[in-house]
């Protein structure tokens, strides 16, 4: 569906050249759901905008839905759906009419556009809001209308730029239900950008981690996490002395890695181990035998944030690094 080679985009800001995207190779097969994950300013949206013909690449090639974005932008547009970061519907327009207009713009006949509008309003639970002005829709409704506009012509490939930004958790979950149903029903290939870890983790089949304009990791969430060395096991104890003893005991576990005693208000021990759940019983027995009584015990599977941290030394959660 998508194949880019050495795709780059440079912007001129004043006298400086900003290299927003630096040589990106992306391959997406039919039916995939791929998330571009990265911090703000990583180049996710710029990449997406090149793939959707909204920005001309500085160099490199991109073939999207069988057509080159440079040579045949109009044909690419016809074959893809695009849901931008902002809201696609005009504020003084009515929801249903805006959707109908969108259908006409994609070359649907009047009757088809009308039928398709009714169908999408129904599927995305917007039927009651069809005659309402766009400004009077709720945030979730507006976002679903954006998605509907992206789908009006049944594109085999849909791009979503930060689809759930600004939505409350309930609307976000609801949006993802719709996206999941869409894939199930029509096998639409979906490429989205997000900086929500949970989204990339839970929903996407494949995650491309992007940082400083480059793809720094590519794989399923599980594959990426497997690259990080194991689960994080941590337990807290009553005092610093017990923490030191606990760390010594934990260090004797054969697979344990990076064991450290944590001092401070909640003294305890942290370690990385391949299968946290498997070593836990053994660890607890050993602690018990030495008279160390853990107050709390936790096993954390690595998150995509750990992946990003391992790759870049920075956390994705720091919004303003």
């Amino acid at each position: 569906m998508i194949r880019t080679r050495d795709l780059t985009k440079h912007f001129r800001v004043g006298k400086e050249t900003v290299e927003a995207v630096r040589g990106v190779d992306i391959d997406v097969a039919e039916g995939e759901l791929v998330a571009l994950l990265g911090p703000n300013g990583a180049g996710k949206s710029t990449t997406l905008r090149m793939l959707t013909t909204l920005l001309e690449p500085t160099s490199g090639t991109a073939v999207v839905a069988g057509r080159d974005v440079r040579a045949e932008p109009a044909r690419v547009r016809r074959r893809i759906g695009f849901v931008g970061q902002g809201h696609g519907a005009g504020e003084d327009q009515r929801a249903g009419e805006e959707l109908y207009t969108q259908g006409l713009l994609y070359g649907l006949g009047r009757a088809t556009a009308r039928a398709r509008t009714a169908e999408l309003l129904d599927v995305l639970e917007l039927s009651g809001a069809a005659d309402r002005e766009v400004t009077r829709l709720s945030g979730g409704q507006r976002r679903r209308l954006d998605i509907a506009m992206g789908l009006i012509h049944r594109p085999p490939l849909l791009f979503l730029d930060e689809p759930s930004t600004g939505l409350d958790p309930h609307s976000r979950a609801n949006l993802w239900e719709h996206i999941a149903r869409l894939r199930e029903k029509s096998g639409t290939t979906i490429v989205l950008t997000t900086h929500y870890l949970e989204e990339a983790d839970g929903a996407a089949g494949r995650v491309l981690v992007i940082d400083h304009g480059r793809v720094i990791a590519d794989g399923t969430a599980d594959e990426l996490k497997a690259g990080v060395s194991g689960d994080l096991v941590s337990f807290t104890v009553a005092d610093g002395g017990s923490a030191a003893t606990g760390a010594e005991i934990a260090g004797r576990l054969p697979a344990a890695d990076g064991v450290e005693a944590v001092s401070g208000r909640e003294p305890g021990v942290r370690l990385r181990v391949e299968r946290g759940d498997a070593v836990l019983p053994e660890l607890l027995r050993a602690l018990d035998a030495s008279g160390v009584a853990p107050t709390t015990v936790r096993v954390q599977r690595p998150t995509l944030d750990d992946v990003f941290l391992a790759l870049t030394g920075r956390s994705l959660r720091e919004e303003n690094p």
Partner: protein
Amino acid sequence: MTTETAAPTAAAEAGVPRPSPLRDTGIVFARQMRPLLHRPALLLFGMLQPVLYLVLFAPLLSGLAGAEGENPWQWFVPGLLVMLALFTAGFAGFGLLPELASGAHERLTASPVSRVALLLGRVLGDVAVMTAQAVLIVVLVLPFGFRVPVAGLVVGLLLLVVLGTGVSSVSYLVALRVRRTFVFAPIVQTAVMPLMLLSGVLLPMELAPGWLYGLSRINPVAYVVDAERALFAGEWNAVVALGWAVAVAATLLVLLLGSRAMRRISA
């Protein structure tokens, strides 16, 4: 991808092989007109300023000697319609600014719609509004003794359409370029005010000192005002021809530059 999804896309492509600029212009025009159809009162919104001039300024002219003093409205209304065109069409870009900010314009450019249609459809919408407002003003002054020959009125309104097309195209192109209200607003004010003051809408430019009269002669709008006055007086002379020539030439130039800019903005 299943065949179920492939078929409609392929069919859509076969049915409409290339974007048709004419059909697209119609679609964009219809979209532009919808808010107005739902709320016709919006039509009056842009008319306040000309109507105020009509009621609170035109009567002042009766103190002057000459044609403008004898029958102020007969002299003033044709120019007032040009003022209306300048304001309604000149401020057209304000309608695009929220769409540039929200992402609605981006969504349109991501669709296969013809780039030129994206400009022309909007311009046509504004010109339709402007024409409706002009007709409304003429109807308003008829009960007060204003008279205009039908042929002169029709040709005069057509000239207004040409002017409005050019002015509103420029307004959109500037809005597309600067994108932000706080930049756009002063630019439009700075452009529209001198164009109006130097066109002889309010007072005859013949009253002006030489340098000011000279300035008015490089203002295309002044020629349109002169032509409108002649047409509304039922005169068919060189002034009419010159006004048309200037308006058509200027608007064609704008459209040429505008369609090139539109293709470049989002090729």
